[in-house]
């Protein structure tokens, strides 16, 4: 018998047909009886005191049902790092002060969108403008305008990571190199903008349909800020049109629609416009990085020191996590005998920065991998070799931080090495750059302060053998529904089609922390596997009576066939046994639960993915224009669950990460984003995509379900670095300031010629 019957077969998305036939109802599609439409008035000042808000004219406009401001809230500051009250610093509807352009100050519900929009113009806000500060390196200076009372010199969070004797390491180094890097911002650009339909009924229950990566977080955060009990709030998010890190914090659409609905006892819908999406939701954290590395002549890494100042924007959001992760992944995926990291997250009068796919790691990887190639070049060592020499390996312990169990980095380097050699001699002005990377499979630290297991699942097996699987995980397009159904089917020994998946509703799904930090496959996967395994045990109890094996452990189920492991031809139909078993249980379906919370797995994550990416690009020596040719990735995500899913993640990540590397940016003028639309914000399109290829390196991760680990965010980490190295090898210049635009390359080439 084959080892697996479901896992590692290419499976199309379980909800694919509903999506392509247009039956999938996104929040955007929801309409309820008596539903009103809400809009949000946002600050046009980057920093100002609110002296007065006069809503009377707006209230008098025909069709307007309610106009609310910060005065109508409980006045609580909220944040997602609930364990640390000082990091909960955002009111969502500002009461006294606005700190960025786009911050909500009032919200309106009206009979239609046009009326609501018109009403916004009638709200009179009296501001007292305050001096603003927009760059972290300015904001941290003595005497700079201060955003929050408690944050002197605008320092919001600091992080320190250290191991080994760094100073001694530098002493012993034959070669020391230091560089400054600037990593730009990036917008998530989900196809579905942030939106919510809130429905509060006189019984005191609030139901919110919304587009989110974590219905559980939104339920808890909403209950808290609205003064409701946790289970008086129900959050439903059956389909989510993209997340990428932008949708697991409480947002203005969810909060304002709820507030309005509670006031009116009528459903209220708020959908952010594309412009609001760009200017008034969170974004990738810009970082100013100083990196210093000391190595031996032969390329052995000895000591590394990194310091980063990140542009926090006006509020904390998930910034504390990004600050830790960027520091940790700055050392990744290598063995640094000594390492010291100091991170400062600095408040600025700009839109808050937070989680975005890769979560601080793409920035770190860009700096680290660019510098490694510069070092290798200086020492005359091949880029593959210097990485191989210092690569992490199975069993390696990052001092005080993490234990690496599975690690296929070495095999990934082999594959990429082979691919580079197969390319032969490159034409002039073309280069191949590589970058090695890794990422976590879900986080360990309980900053949200949840009393629940990190993931849980419930299984019910019905009379016809069909399985109802209830998960708390959120599918936002990444395919976790399919992955969970596959894990369930494999463990239970049934067909993929036997699984009916239930998700996206806090009322009947168990708690899971949501789809962020690449946690679902490992964490929700483990919970599903546990539930399936327990359900299977119940079925095998009945089967044992019929098949009388030596002991029950000799039985298993595969592909609907309950059999003796030693003699697979001897067995019974799963469907028949289930029927009888349920009858025998007085008609009660078979039910089992599973859960997972990581214990004693270090500071970061229970498991890490690894990989190496090669980007081949042409650089026009005259204009600096970059053309992507090939992008090849050797990837270790442990046991692949769904090859199609991994491919989808890789291609999507590639488009997003290459965009980060060379076209996407959010330029600002005094806190105002200058390109808040899809014409000026340059996303890569299909015509721009290079040939992409993924080469799987299979390892077995003991902590993951069937040996699986993450394959979601990690893939966004290497591309900017690999691209910068490709440009370096094509031209001899190194751009340390993202994005790598033609003009920057052009200027650097000009500089080089002068020398």
């Amino acid at each position, binding site marked *: 018998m084959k080892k697996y019957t479901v896992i590692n077969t290419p499976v199309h998305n379980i909800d694919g047909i509903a999506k392509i036939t247009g039956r999938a109802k996104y929040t955007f599609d929801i309409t309820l009886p008596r539903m009103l439409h809400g809009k949000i008035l946002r600050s046009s000042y980057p920093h100002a005191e609110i002296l007065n808000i006069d809503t009377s004219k707006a209230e008098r406009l025909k069709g307007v049902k309610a106009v609310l401001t910060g005065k109508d809230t409980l006045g609580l500051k909220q944040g997602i790092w609930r364990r640390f009250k000082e990091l909960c610093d955002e009111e969502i509807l500002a009461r006294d002060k606005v700190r960025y352009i786009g911050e909500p100050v009032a919200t309106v519900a009206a009979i239609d*969108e*046009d009326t609501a*929009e018109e009403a916004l113009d009638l709200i009179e806000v009296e501001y007292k403008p305050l001096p603003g500060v927009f760059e972290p390196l300015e904001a941290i200076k003595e005497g700079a305008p201060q955003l929050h009372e408690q944050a002197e010199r605008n320092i919001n969070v600091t992080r320190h990571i250290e191991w080994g004797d760094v100073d001694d390491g530098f002493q012993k180094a034959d070669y020391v190199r230091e560089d400054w890097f600037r990593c730009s911002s990036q917008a998530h650009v989900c196809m579905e903008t942030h939106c919510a339909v809130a429905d509060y009924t006189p019984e005191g229950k609030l139901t919110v349909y919304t587009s989110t990566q974590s219905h559980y977080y939104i339920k808890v955060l909403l209950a808290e800020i609205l003064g409701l009990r946790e289970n008086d709030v129900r959050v439903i998010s059956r389909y989510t049109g993209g997340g990428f890190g932008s949708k697991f914090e409480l947002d203005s659409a969810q909060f304002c629609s709820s507030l309005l609905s509670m006031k009116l006892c009528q459903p209220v819908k708020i959908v952010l*416009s594309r*412009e609001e999406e760009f200017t008034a939701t969170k974004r990738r954290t810009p970082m100013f990085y100083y990196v210093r590395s000391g190595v031996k002549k032969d390329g052995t890494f000895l000591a590394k020191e990194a310091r980063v100042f990140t542009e926090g924007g006006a509020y904390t959001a998930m910034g504390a996590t990004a600050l830790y992760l960027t520091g940790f992944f700055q050392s990744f995926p290598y063995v640094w005998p000594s390492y010291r990291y100091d991170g400062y997250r600095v408040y600025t009068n700009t839109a808050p920065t937070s989680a975005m796919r890769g979560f601080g790691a793409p920035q770190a990887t860009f700096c680290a991998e660019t510098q490694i190639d510069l070092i290798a070049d200086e020492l005359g060592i091949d880029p593959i070799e210097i990485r191989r020499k210092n690569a992490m390996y199975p069993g390696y312990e990052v001092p005080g931080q993490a234990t690496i169990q599975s690690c296929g980095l070495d095999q990934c380097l082999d594959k990429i090495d082979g691919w580079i050699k197969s390319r032969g001699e490159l034409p002039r002005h073309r280069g191949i750059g590589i970058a090695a990377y890794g990422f976590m499979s879900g986080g360990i630290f309980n900053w949200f302060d949840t009393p629940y297991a990190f993931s849980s699942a419930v299984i019910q097996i019905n009379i016809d053998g069909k399985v109802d699987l209830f998960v708390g995980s959120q599918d936002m397009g990444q395919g976790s529904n399919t992955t969970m159904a596959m894990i369930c089917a494999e463990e239970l020994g049934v067909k993929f089609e036997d699984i009916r998946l239930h998700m996206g509703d806090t009322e009947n799904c168990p708690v899971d922390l949501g789809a962020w930090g690449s946690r679902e496959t490992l964490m929700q996967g483990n919970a599903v596997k546990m539930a399936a395994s327990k359900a299977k045990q119940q079925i095998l109890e009945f089967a044992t009576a019929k098949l009388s094996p030596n002991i029950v452990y000799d039985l298993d189920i595969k592909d609907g066939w309950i059999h003796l492991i030693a003699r697979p031809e001897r067995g019974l139909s799963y469907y028949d046994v289930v029927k009888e078993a349920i009858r025998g249980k007085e008609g009660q379906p078979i039910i089992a639960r599973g859960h997972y919370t990581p214990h004693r797995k270090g500071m970061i994550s229970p498991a890490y993915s690894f990989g190496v990416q090669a980007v081949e690009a042409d650089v026009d020596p*005259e*204009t600096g*224009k970059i053309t992507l040719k090939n992008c090849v990735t050797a990837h270790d995500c442990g046991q692949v669950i769904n090859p199609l899913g991994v491919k989808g993640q890789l291609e999507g990540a590639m488009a997003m990460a290459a965009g980060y590397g*060379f*076209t996407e940016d959010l*330029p600002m003028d005094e806190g105002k984003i*200058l*390109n808040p*639309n899809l*014409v*000026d914000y*340059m996303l*890569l*399109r299909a*015509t*721009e995509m290079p040939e992409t290829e993924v080469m799987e390196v299979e390892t077995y991760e003991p902590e993951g379900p069937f040996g699986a680990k993450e394959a979601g965010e990690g893939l966004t980490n290497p591309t900017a670095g690999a691209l910068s190295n490709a440009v370096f090898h094509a031209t001899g210049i190194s751009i340390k300031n993202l994005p790598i*635009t*033609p*003009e920057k390359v*052009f200027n650097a080439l000009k500089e080089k010629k002068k020398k």
Partner: protein
Amino acid sequence: MIHNFNYRRATSVEETLGLLEKCKEDYKIICGGQSLLILMRQGLVAPENLIDIKSVKEMSYIDYDPKNGLKIGAATIHREIEKSPLIKKYYPVLVEMEKNLASVQTRNWGTIGGNLAHGDPAGDPGPILIASNATVKMASLERERILPLEDFFIDIFETALEEGELLTEIQLPILPKKTAVAYEKFSIIKNQQGIVSVAVSITIDEDAVKCKDARIVLGAAAAIPLRAKEAEQMLIGKKIDTKLLASVGKKASEESDPVSDIHATETYRRFLVKTLTTKVAKKAWELAKAAN
């Protein structure tokens, strides 16, 4: 958010002109909507009346005759131009230009007339058409007039179209003997508005030795598609070589008047004008030598 407006659809030129007169105070013509809707969405344009000419069939055509050349109805979509065998045969540079103009979806909606009437100096068709000596036909209830396209562009987003006037046709004369037009745009990603673009038409003399006539038109390098006339003069009557082409590029760059914005600085744009002009002029020269 798009403000409310009265929507009117016309089905003939006559009906359109009547509506323009009727809504004289405050109207906007919409054809494919590919440029206008962006402005309306951002609240930059909020017309009281929107007059839709997409269904004016008589304004969508591509005609060619060997005496008068090419006539394109203003409401002809980009995709039609891209796919037209006539245009491929007689004005192949237009086909190449269309292939890199926006995405297929936009080309299926956007029209050549809308593109020109929008008056965006970064538009692709403008420079090529000016280099090819195109004229445009405009109609109002009172009159019909024809203008060289070069005089049609007044300022950024401003054209010679007057109130009550409709752009109806784009006319391209037969290219003189031994003439070729070349075009290139520089954009960071394909199918995107250019950061800078250059069109050059070159006519060479009978003996294929010297340049007899030349037109150089720069896109996104000034408030309007700009003719680099001094650079043109440097070519006319000369034998073209690499050195001359380099100085022509330099001259065009001096004549250009680009701005700095989030996509590129003025300096970089000037540099691009220089290299692109040199490159495109060379291409036009070579094509012209091979032409009949």
